[in-house]
Structure formats: structure tokens, C-alpha cells
């Protein structure tokens, strides 16, 4: 469990004194009921598929991960080694829950699951990430996505 008192002192300091970006306005987009939404996962855990370029220090770009990608094809090259890997080792759904989304769709909780999901590597500066994030948004809109579940590492 993670509360401030349970973080290492260096990470506490990073959170307390770290860079907090500010943006113009506060967009807040509404949509249809959950049972009609098409949901995509966007994780900042630094996932890529085997054979693709891995995330390197300072990489603000993204990887597109088709929904049918088997867990055996996923690698995690996030440059931070300060978070647990053994949960993901046992079950990719702890941070990339596409299988769970399919189950929620089958149960009728959500409408459907996006054809493609996305990964960035968190903890970077927002400015270089912006064009990639907006590109991902366009790709998701083409896929009729109208709900995004953001998961960290």
C-alpha cells in the first residue's frame, strides 16, 4: 500500500517538491452512460511489444498495443526501477487490464473494448509528450473510444 509515509524519503521528496505542470483551462468531457462507452487503456508504465523499440531515458513517445496482444509479447522498460515488477510478472492486468475490460463488456458494465491500447513512459516532462498524446487521442477517436482508463506504473 502506498501512502506518503510508506514511500522512501527520496520519493517523498520527489512528490512533495517535484514539478507539477499547469495548463490552460480545465477540460472536463462528459459522455453517454458507462454501458454504452468504448473503453481504452492508456498506461504510463513503459510497455512495448517484443521487437519494438524499448523505452529509453527521456522517451516521450508512445507504443500502440493491439487489444489481442498476448501478455507474452509485452515488455516493460520503464527507466524507473522504484516500483514493483512482480505483480505484472504474474498478471499483466495489474496495470494493463485489457482482459478485465473484455469481461466488463461481456457483463454489460461497459459497451465495448477499444481495438488498440497505448503506453507511454511516465515521469517525463509534459511538453515533448504533447504531440504524441494528441496523436493518440486522434487514433482513439478514429476507433470510437469515448472513455480512457489511465493507469500508472
Amino acid at each position, binding site marked *: *500500500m502506498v*501512502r*506518503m509515509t510508506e*514511500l*522512501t524519503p*527520496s*520519493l517523498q521528496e520527489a*512528490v512533495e517538491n*517535484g514539478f*507539477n505542470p499547469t*495548463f490552460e*483551462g*480545465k*477540460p472536463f*468531457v*462528459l459522455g453517454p452512460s*458507462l454501458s454504452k*462507452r468504448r473503453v481504452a487503456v*492508456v498506461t504510463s508504465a513503459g510497455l512495448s511489444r*517484443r521487437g519494438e523499440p*524499448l523505452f*529509453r*531515458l527521456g522517451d516521450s513517445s508512445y507504443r500502440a498495443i493491439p487489444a489481442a496482444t498476448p*501478455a*507474452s509479447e509485452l*515488455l516493460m*522498460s520503464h527507466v524507473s*526501477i*522504484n*516500483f*514493483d*515488477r*512482480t*505483480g*505484472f*510478472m*504474474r498478471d499483466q492486468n*495489474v*496495470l494493463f*487490464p485489457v482482459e*478485465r475490460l473484455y*469481461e*466488463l463488456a461481456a457483463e454489460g*458494465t461497459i459497451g465495448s473494448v477499444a481495438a488498440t491500447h497505448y503506453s507511454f513512459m511516465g515521469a517525463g516532462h*509534459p511538453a515533448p*509528450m*504533447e504531440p504524441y*498524446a*494528441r496523436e493518440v*487521442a*486522434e487514433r*482513439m*477517436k478514429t476507433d470510437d473510444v469515448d*472513455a*480512457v*482508463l*489511465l*493507469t*500508472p*506504473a
Partner: protein
Amino acid sequence: MSALAYFLEDEGLPTVAVSVIRLQSERLGNPRSLWVPFELGRPLGTPNDPVFQKHVIRSALELLEAPSGPVLLVDYPHEDPSAADRDDWFPPFNFAESIPNPSDGVQFAAALEDEMQTLAPLHRAFVAATRRSMVGESGMDIEGCRRFFLAYLADPAATAAANPMTWVPWVVDDLRYYYLEAMLSAYPVIPSSRQLEGWFWDRTGLARGLLALRSKLITHNDTMTRFVGERALLPGPQRHRLGL
């Protein structure tokens, strides 16, 4: 607001973030966040527990139906039951009892090879059971990783590519994941992440070698090599636990 949440929402896509550090969520001011009291790296909680994970996801997605905002920040009320240490887990190997000092290159290399051969059938069992592995970042097989690590430990300057940050972390990840995956299939009880990492860092020759490498790199002349030593070898929680 986190960059991703802002840019996606600004493009017209409704977002909800699962958050593992509450203060960060308070400061970022995402449109919608569900704070979960789970460890870093497991934002949906318990591995292989679909019921638990779906409850977390539902709790997050339901925030999308709130009629007004931002900012919505809700606390998830349940702990991750898999986070607790298991007092019925007994790691079957304590390699550290017999591992030579890493400065004794030949003997240390032989001991490391023996250690990894001991773990090899357990790693094969993990892959057979799960049909996956996180090993594979470096592009080398695990023997190649071991040889590369030993060569780098012996002389960082001799094996340094233009930027060690581009490959040392991947070799180290592959080696560490190999050990942790092997240990996950070594005993019928699944330990907590703290227990697994504690075993690795306290009881394996590889960890002893990594700590020796770290000692070398953190005083290195080259900035990026020093960065590798400080940031890419020893996870923060272990650095804190070991007082390094």
C-alpha cells in the same frame, strides 16, 4: 493535471486515472481520479484476482458518470490482500552463504553460473506455467546477459558503449527478472513483493555483484555511468532498506 489526462481530455476524450500516490493526485488535479492504497506497480491491486481488479476498474469508470467536475478524487476503500507478507513462505535458496567476493572475478563468475543453473529449471517452470516472461529487453539470452554483466563488473570502461544507460538497465532487468520469476515457481506459497525482493537482495550472488557494480559506478568519472550506478541498479526501496 497530469499531462496525459489534460491532453486527452482537451482533445475531447473523457478520462479517469487510477492513482497510487494521493498527494500527487491532489496536486495534479486530474479531471477524475481514483486513489488506490496499493503498492507502486500494482494500480489494480491483486494479481490474478479478476473479481478484485474489476471492482477497482468499476469504481474508477463510474466516476465518468458524475455529471459535473473537475476535480473528482475518490479514495478506494479496500486494501490489496496480496500486499501482506506471508509467514508461511520459506525461500528455498540462500546463495549468499557461499558466494565469493565479486572482486574475485574468476571464482565469482563460476559461483554466479552455478547459481543461475540452479534457478534454470525453476525459470523454465515459471514460463511453462504462465506462458510468458518479462525477460527479453536486452535482446540477449540469459547466458549472454550474465557474461555481459560480469565483463562490465570487471571493467566498466572496457565494455562501455557510447551511453551505458541505453543497455545496462536492460541487461540488469533481464537478470533480475530471471531470478524473481524463477523464485515465483520455487515454492507453492506466493510471497509478497517485499519478501521476493528481500530474498533477491539479501540472498543471491547476483545481488552481491550488482551492489559491487553500484559501488564502482557511483564514483565513476563519466556522468552517465554514474547515473546508471545511482538510478538503474538498486531500487529505491532496497536502497533505503539497506541504508545505501
